[in-house]
């Protein structure tokens, strides 16, 4: 009986306990890490935000999106435009524009001069683009591989557009060389720590949002649409709107990740968001387990850490490893680390520790 109450306690307070542990870890990191490592961790967290969204759209919703770079890029460019305008002050244009003889920033730049609009824009712009695209595509029943291919084509077209419109987007070089972030000096270590905290708490918030979605009724709807899209119509739902919702949330997460990427890394360019980087944003989700809550986050942190450690010393070997991860994990362990979720209860059962059979079954169901 005692086990049951312990279980009940665990189920009831799991998110709270998890959040407390996460917050403790977030505050612990600056104490034990250098400013440089903290910057790297912030960067990983930006990618993790994208991954958490992918987990929702792909793992829960079955929408394999190969084009999250688009939304990452939209968020990033909105933020970069705002920061650039803030750096250069009113009635000035960035250096690359003056080289083309442009004397006034274009309208879509001017829009994001206002910090409030910029902050809203980093989530709203990707969200709206995703919603419009989703309505067009999901509304007509396009899904699966077709959707994956379209999302990939869209991000490819976006990258080409950014390069092609170099007069207003900075072209291949992208936007870089930022000095301040909403009035705070980017070179100051204290401000870097602040940016890290923002990234960390945004990530935590996204995990909690996904946790909440998964627990609520709409979480079941999303799974229903993934596994039985047409059946859902005959249960009275419009699958397209459910998919648009999940896809837009994922896009907003990616946009916010992209927006934080700019102050953290200091540059955004088409090479950060084109076809291959977009698919690589899936790597962490693949490793961590697409259907799990924390898998995308953990997987992304692992793979981005490994990337930093290996890619510079052994660039060739790293690419092979990256390729092999996709090949081996997807082919043989499709659920990633999530596949090992059942191992611990299994060991416990074999060893006869912990809860007894039927009670455990109850706990699993709960």
């Amino acid at each position: 009986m005692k086990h049951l109450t312990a279980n009940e306690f665990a189920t009831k307070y799991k998110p709270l306990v998890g959040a407390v542990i996460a917050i403790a870890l977030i505050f612990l990191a600056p104490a034990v890490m250098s400013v440089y490592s903290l910057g790297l961790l912030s960067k990983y967290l930006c990618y993790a935000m994208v991954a958490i969204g992918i987990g929702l759209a792909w793992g829960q919703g079955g929408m394999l999106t190969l084009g999250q770079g688009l939304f990452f890029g939209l968020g990033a460019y909105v933020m970069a435009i705002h920061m650039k305008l803030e750096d250069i002050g009113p009635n000035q244009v960035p250096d690359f524009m003056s080289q083309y003889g442009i004397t006034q920033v274009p309208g879509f730049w001017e829009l994001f001069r206002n910090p409030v609009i910029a902050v809203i824009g980093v989530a709203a712009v990707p969200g709206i683009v995703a919603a419009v695209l989703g309505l067009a595509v999901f509304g007509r029943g396009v899904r699966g591989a077709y959707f994956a291919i379209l999302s990939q084509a869209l991000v490819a077209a976006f990258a080409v557009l950014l390069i092609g419109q170099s007069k207003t987007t900075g072209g291949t070089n992208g936007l870089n060389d930022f000095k301040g972030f909403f009035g705070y000096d980017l070179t100051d270590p204290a401000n870097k720590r602040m940016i890290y905290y923002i990234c960390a708490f945004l990530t935590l918030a996204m995990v909690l949002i996904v946790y909440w979605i998964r627990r609520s009724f709409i979480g079941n709807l999303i799974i229903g649409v993934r596994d039985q899209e047409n059946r859902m119509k005959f249960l009275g739902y419009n699958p397209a709107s459910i998919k648009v919702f999940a896809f837009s949330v994922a896009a907003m997460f990616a946009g916010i990740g992209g927006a934080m990427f700019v102050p953290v890394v200091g540059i955004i360019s088409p090479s950060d968001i084109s076809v291959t980087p977009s698919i690589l944003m899936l790597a962490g989700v693949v490793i961590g387990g697409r259907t799990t809550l924390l898998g995308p986050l953990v997987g992304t942190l692992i793979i981005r850490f490994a990337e930093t450690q290996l890619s510079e010393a052994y660039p060739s070997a790293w690419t092979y490893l990256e390729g092999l991860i996709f090949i081996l994990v997807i082919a043989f362990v499709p659920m990633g680390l999530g596949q090992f979720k059942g191992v611990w209860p299994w060991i416990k059962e074999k060893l006869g520790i912990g809860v007894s059979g039927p009670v455990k079954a109850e706990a699993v169901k709960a």
Partner: protein
Amino acid sequence: MGMLFPQIVAGLSNGSILLLAALGLSLTFGQMGVINNAHGEFMMAGAYTAYVTSTIIGNKAVSLGVALVVGFVVAGLLGLLLDVLLLERMRNRPLDTLLVTFGVSLVLQQLARDIFGATPVYAEAPDALTNPVTVFGYSFSAGRLFIFILSIVCVAALYAVLKLTPLGRQIRATSENRDLAEVSGISTKTVDHITFFLGSGIAGIAGVALSLLNSISFNFGTTFIVQAFLVVVAGGVGQLKGAVIASFVLGLAQSAIELPTSASIGQMAIFLIVVVFLQFRPQGLVSIRSRNLA
């Protein structure tokens, strides 16, 4: 007329390039449901084959002829290997093959970079194909004309194989009803392998042909793959006819839009055309079978 004619020619040429790149994909995607992200790298393998033969064989025309055959075999064998080792066990998870083959494409690209270096190389084309030819007072690139003809030949050959040979019948039977084909004595496993070999082999031919126009580097395939996918999506599953029409329509549209605007706008426009097209004709792509709602 004066402006229109060269533009149409450019469009047809673009279309034939798209068609060559998409033909093999259309076969493997349509017949087997496999989305092969490494298709571009099979094209790259074909292109590097052309480069290798051109360094070995002095006569450029002979070298090209040899490369077309060897490129077909090399890319085909790569595809066969991929199918036997990986894709065979993933028949019921088509979406996952997209990611697995992406991993394969990463590996193949790095392999090419390690073997041939990061700097682009060139396979020298026969002189006959580098000189322009003049028809009705307009001059065309002979290389592009060659690619146009080659793409038509490939389509015709593939069509003939699918429609006229026993192998083609088996391929079609397998794609239409796998279980029925199996009980009718067709080894669907073997048919799948052959189909994949054929589709990948066509990528090799495409790579050899396109090396006439482009420099060859490890990211040779990435230039074509995204648009090739779009052709397959717009053309519909398993429809050679669809792929042919989609290639030329998109090729013509691209050259028509590119001319007054820019290449980047052209590419964006292609994407939008396909999405808009899907609004009107998703039927080719979506089929609900009411009895089991699969």
